[in-house]
C-alpha cells in the first residue's frame, strides 16, 4: 500500500499563512467564494501543468533511452525537458504495465508534482480522495470510470513534500508511428495521477 509514513506537522510558510488569512476573512464576509476561486483557477491553469507532464510521457514512449533515464532518475530526466521544481523535491516516475497500475495520492495538497502537472485538481485536494485512495483504490478509480482487471496489482503511492510521483501510463495500442507531439495529446492529467488511462487515438 502506501510507501511510508510521514508524521511531520503541517506547517505553512509565512506566505501561505498570509493567503489563508486573507482568503478566510474575505470568505467570512461573503466577498469571495472558495468554490468560485477554484473554478477560476482551473480555468486559468488548465494549460500550466499537465501539458508538461504529457510531453515527458510522450518522450518516454518514443525514446527508450529517455524512458530508462526517466525511471532511474525522474528529477534529472524531467529537467532535461526544462521542468524543474522550486523546492528541490525529488521526482519519482512510476511505470504502469499490463500487470501493475500505480495510483498517486497525497494527504496534503502541497504534495503534487507541480512542475509537470501544474496545480492539483480540486478532487485531489479533497478529503474523500485523500482518505479513500489508500483504503479503497479500486473503488476510487471506478468513480473515475477506471475499472481494472482483478489480476492487475494496484500500488498506491503517498507523496510527501520531498518526494513527488508521476505515473507513466501505458502507451495505448494502435499508436505505432504517431509523432511525439500527437502522442502527448493522448496523455491526460488523470492518466499521470493514476485515476485514468491514456486516451485511445481517434
Amino acid at each position, binding site marked *: 500500500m502506501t510507501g511510508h509514513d510521514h508524521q511531520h506537522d*503541517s506547517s505553512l510558510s509565512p*506566505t501561505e*499563512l498570509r493567503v489563508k488569512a486573507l482568503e478566510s476573512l474575505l470568505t467570512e464576509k461573503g*466577498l469571495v*467564494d472558495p468554490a468560485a476561486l*477554484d473554478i477560476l483557477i482551473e480555468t486559468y491553469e488548465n494549460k500550466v501543468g499537465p501539458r508538461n507532464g504529457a510531453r515527458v510521457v510522450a518522450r518516454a514512449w518514443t525514446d527508450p533511452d529517455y524512458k530508462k533515464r526517466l525511471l532511474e532518475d525522474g528529477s534529472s530526466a524531467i529537467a532535461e525537458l526544462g521542468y524543474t521544481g522550486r523546492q528541490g523535491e525529488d521526482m519519482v516516475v512510476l511505470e504502469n504495465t499490463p500487470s501493475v497500475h500505480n495510483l498517486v495520492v497525497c494527504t496534503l495538497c502541497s504534495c503534487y508534482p507541480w512542475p509537470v502537472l501544474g496545480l492539483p485538481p480540486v478532487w485531489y485536494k479533497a478529503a474523500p480522495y*485523500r482518505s479513500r485512495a489508500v483504503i479503497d483504490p479500486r473503488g476510487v478509480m471506478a468513480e473515475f470510470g477506471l475499472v481494472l482487471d482483478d489480476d492487475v496489482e494496484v500500488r498506491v503511492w503517498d507523496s510527501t513534500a520531498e518526494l513527488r510521483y508521476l505515473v507513466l501510463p501505458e502507451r495505448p495500442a494502435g499508436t505505432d508511428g504517431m509523432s511525439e507531439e500527437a502522442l502527448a495529446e493522448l496523455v491526460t492529467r488523470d492518466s499521470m495521477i493514476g485515476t485514468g488511462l491514456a486516451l485511445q487515438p481517434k
Partner: protein
Amino acid sequence: MSALPDLDALPVLPTDKEGPVFKEPWEAQAFAMTVKLYEAGHFTWKEWADYLAAEIAAARDRGEPDTGETYYTYWLTALERIATDKGLTTAADLSDRKDAWDRAAKATPHGEPILLDRIARGADGA
C-alpha cells in the same frame, strides 16, 4: 459576468500566450481572489495595477532582483494593501488570523485538513 480583466494593463505578469502561470497554489489563490474582488466591483483593474506596480517599484528600490520567483509575493502584498484600503478587511484582522492559521497548521498532523477550530478543540483534534 464581466469580461476578464485586461491583463495587458499590468507591468510584467508572468504569462505565456495561453495565460498566467502559477508555480504554487497560493499564487493562484492570490490571483483568483484579486480577479473576483475586481469582478465584484471593489476596485478597478487600473487601481489594482497601480497597487501592484507600486509594490514592484518598491521592491526594485530595495534592490531586489525582479524575478518571477518573487512576483506573486509582491502581488500578495498589493492585494493585502488594496483590500485594507478599500475597507474589506483590516491589518489587525489579517495579523490575528495569520497567527491563528499558524497555530492550527502546527497542531495538525500531516495528512489531516488544517482547521482553524483545531486549536479550540485541542491539538489532538478529537
